[in-house]
């Protein structure tokens, strides 16, 4: 099983596959060993990844030249190769089995139940793992109302972030007047630092199709759309392969499985606008218009796409549906907390050792995610904050680490569930800079319809920019808070209404950093260029001249084997010298 998710593809996993094929052929093992290119395994930091089944032996960070040795040892002599296995950072001995690795053992897979186990471009492998069993159960033995009741009892809530009860949406739409009815799968995953929707589409596209089929049957829809980001070419390719295979098998099209139910799905490609993840903007975009949200006094379930009743759900919501129907609502409702049922998929990224895609039950604590699954921070640096919920979420400090992860707790703490991005920040990250980063993102992505969002975010950005450049004034924090209130209240859609979150949460938990920027004109994390200076520690400098060679502005002088110095007049503070120095002699102050 070789991972062929985007992370591993860019780490050249197809070269590994070719090498494997070559070696297996050489040893005449093609009959015994089958190579399967799977969807994303989740442990992206360690790619390229290969898992040998049935034992479940996990190899990571493979290189082309490792393969001859691996094939000869493992497949020919039956001796798994220890040095290519994963060694947890704190330990010395490698862990051979995938299920014993901390990153995997704490997870519970439901939406991602097929990850790394099937070839996403082959429908038979999905069916062999009980695929489409839930749909045939629904369409042959359940009435549409029973399907909705099952979803209601399971307590499934929208996985796109807002957490609206899925069954309520479906029921509204089912009883809304107007034909035809549409369903939409929202795969416009615009949040930076999130890639779970993409991994699902790339790794298990049929689970989304099956979920949509069940939903269409329950709602009474004949046509569905999936709106995918244009930046995800591989996801689009795999999903369209899956669609044509499902059509061949009679799972899509007219009279599905010989019943009177007909349904088909078309793909709509996005064009790079973050706001199109908002439901009404997304529908406008499918209709071929510019993606501006509209006023929602009438729900999409009554008048959505082409002004017809429409249900829009996130990829993860649709992918959760088949398991609920197959195992029953009770089984699903047992997982999670009182108000948030089931599991959630997060992309755990940033300054964390085990970067990757994880699926955990609702109610798990942030500490468990970061320290048990993520195995702590890179270089064992000090944890500063975790940012959840994408650009509209917030930053939570160490004191919030024991919070259970569910919709309500995160909102209360000033962040949100969002679509499941989890970005870990360490002591080298400046919180004011992070807040400025998100506003810079949102200011570019605001569609410009509402004045408060268009100009308010800009004004807040300018204010934060001044603070980062050392031009902050005493009253700036109060001004930011006032602007935040206005933007929140006077914006039409979720983008504006949640845009101040990153600013408010950083002010709430990291006010001291704002004060340091404004009063002392210092950036404690050493990020904001205007407030820092580079210098060379004469004790540590060995005079290797590397920094002087790499400096783009020729600001570093010094003879070979003599101490170097930085000319502050010429220095553009790019930080190349600090990056290349092998002796950690370049310091920021």
């Amino acid at each position, binding site marked *: 099983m070789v991972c062929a998710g985007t992370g591993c593809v860019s780490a050249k996993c197809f070269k590994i596959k070719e090498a494997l094929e070559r070696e297996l052929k050489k040893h005449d093992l093609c009959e015994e060993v089958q190579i399967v290119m799977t969807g994303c395994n989740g442990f992206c930091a360690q790619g390229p990844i290969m898992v040998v089944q049935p034992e479940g032996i996990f190899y990571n960070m493979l290189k082309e030249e490792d393969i001859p040795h691996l094939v000869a040892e493992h497949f020919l002599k039956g001796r798994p190769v220890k040095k290519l296995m994963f060694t947890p950072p704190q330990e010395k001995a490698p862990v051979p089995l995938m299920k014993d690795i901390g990153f995997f053992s704490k997870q519970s897979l439901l939406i991602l139940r097929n990850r790394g186990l099937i070839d996403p471009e082959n429908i038979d492998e999905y069916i062999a793992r009980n695929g489409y069993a839930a749909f045939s159960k629904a369409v042959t033995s359940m009435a549409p109302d029973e399907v909705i009741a099952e979803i209601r009892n399971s307590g499934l809530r929208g996985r796109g972030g807002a957490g609206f009860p899925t069954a309520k949406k479906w029921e509204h739409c089912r009883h809304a007047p107007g034909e035809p009815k549409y369903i939409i799968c929202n795969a416009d995953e615009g949040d930076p630092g999130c890639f779970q929707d993409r991994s699902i589409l790339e790794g298990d596209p049929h689970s989304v199709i099956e979920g949509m089929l069940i939903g269409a049957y329950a709602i009474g829809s004949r046509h569905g759309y999936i709106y995918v980001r244009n930046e995800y070419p591989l996801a689009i390719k795999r999903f369209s392969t899956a669609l044509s295979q499902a059509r061949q098998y009679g799972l899509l099209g007219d009279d599905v499985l010989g019943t009177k139910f007909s349904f088909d799905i078309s793909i*709509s490609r996005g064009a790079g606008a973050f706001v199109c993840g908002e439901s009404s903007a997304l529908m406008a975009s499918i209709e071929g218009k510019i993606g501006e949200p509209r006023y929602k006094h009438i729900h999409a379930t009554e008048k959505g796409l082409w002004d017809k009743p429409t249900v829009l759900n996130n990829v993860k919501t649709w992918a959760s549906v088949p398991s609920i129907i197959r195992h029953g609502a009770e089984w699903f409702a047992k997982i999670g907390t009182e108000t948030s049922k089931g599991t959630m998929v997060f992309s755990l990224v940033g300054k964390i050792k085990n970067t990757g895609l994880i699926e955990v039950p609702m109610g798990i604590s942030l500490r468990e995610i970061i320290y048990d699954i993520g195995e702590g921070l890179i270089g064992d640096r000090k944890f500063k904050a975790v940012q959840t919920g994408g650009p509209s979420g917030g930053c939570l400090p160490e004191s919030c680490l024991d919070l259970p992860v569910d919709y309500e707790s995160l909102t209360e703490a000033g962040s949100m569930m969002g679509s499941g991005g989890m970005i870990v920040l360490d002591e080298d990250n400046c919180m004011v800079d992070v807040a400025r980063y998100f506003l810079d993102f949102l200011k570019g992505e605001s569609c410009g319809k509402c004045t408060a969002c268009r100009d308010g975010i800009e004004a807040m950005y300018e204010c934060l920019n001044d603070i980062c450049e050392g031009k902050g004034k005493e009253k700036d924090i109060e001004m930011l808070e006032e602007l935040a209130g206005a933007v929140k209240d006077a914006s039409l859609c979720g983008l504006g209404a949640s845009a101040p979150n990153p600013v408010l949460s950083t002010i709430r938990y990291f006010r001291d950093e704002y004060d340091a920027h404004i009063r002392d004109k210092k950036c404690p994390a050493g990020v904001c260029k205007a407030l820092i200076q580079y210098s060379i520690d004469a004790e540590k400098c060995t005079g290797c001249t590397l920094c002087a060679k790499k400096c783009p502005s020729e600001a570093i002088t010094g003879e070979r084997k003599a101490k170097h110095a930085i000319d502050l007049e010429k220095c553009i503070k790019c930080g190349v010298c600090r990056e290349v120095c092998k002796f950690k002699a370049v310091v920021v102050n």
Partner: protein
Amino acid sequence: MSEAKTNDGKIGAALVVGGGIGGMQAALDLADSGIKVYLVDKEPSIGGVMAKLDKTFPTNDCAMCTMAPRLVEVGRNKDIEIISLADVENLSGGPGNFTLTLRKKPRFVKEDKCTGCGTCVTNCPVRNEIYLDVKLDEIKLEDADMSKTTAILERYKGRKEDLIAILQDINAEYRYLPEFVLKYMARKLDVPYSQVYSIATFYTAFSLVPKGKYKISVCLGTACHVRGAQRIMESLERELDIKNGGTTKDMLFSLESVRCIGCCGLAPVFAINEELYGKVSQGKVPQIIEKYRKAEVKDKAYAKT
């Protein structure tokens, strides 16, 4: 009410510049507090922008329903004096006591006698001309462009709702959206050119200017940002001597930022066309660019032979 002088020299009158919805409301509020109001507007009549709108944000209420009562009230209120078709030229003094110079533009109608019947408008022989979109046969396309565009349009069977997908294909074909193709396509699809233009400028995937052979997209997603993506962008800007969004003079490289490629495990990341470069550092940037420059020199040499 008269312009009575108070003890501190202030006069009980106020001036409101601009007779839009805000100006009218201000004038009404001032008049209600017992102050004489002069309402000045440069247009022939008050009402401002809102009078030209059908619906207003955010409630989608009918604009005229909101403003008509105010228009009438302003007109009726004896304490509000409307001075229309006038520009403010000069203002001196302070709050409560100032002198103002207005330039009143000629109306060519005796205001005290006009009843607003509108007969002059219907009888005037001079009409404004209406702008018409160019006709289909006036747009000249080269044969190659014509066949490319026709092929793309046929792929979507001329469906208007696939406009975005059509634009994506044109963008992929030309590496930007050429104006003449857009104009031709708009006429063919029977969509107003303004709508095509609004879509072409709204979505970041489209460009109205030609892009370089190699498109460098630097991921500025959150995971890349916290691992120093901004510095990678700056070193690329230095290396190529262009800014984010620019194209080199030799049309070889275009530099742009993208919000998350979704390879957060490899942060910081940038892509050159489809090729991804993960875990990059500032030091590696020049080598990577040099590789493409060398390949280009080779390509050119090959093309000559």
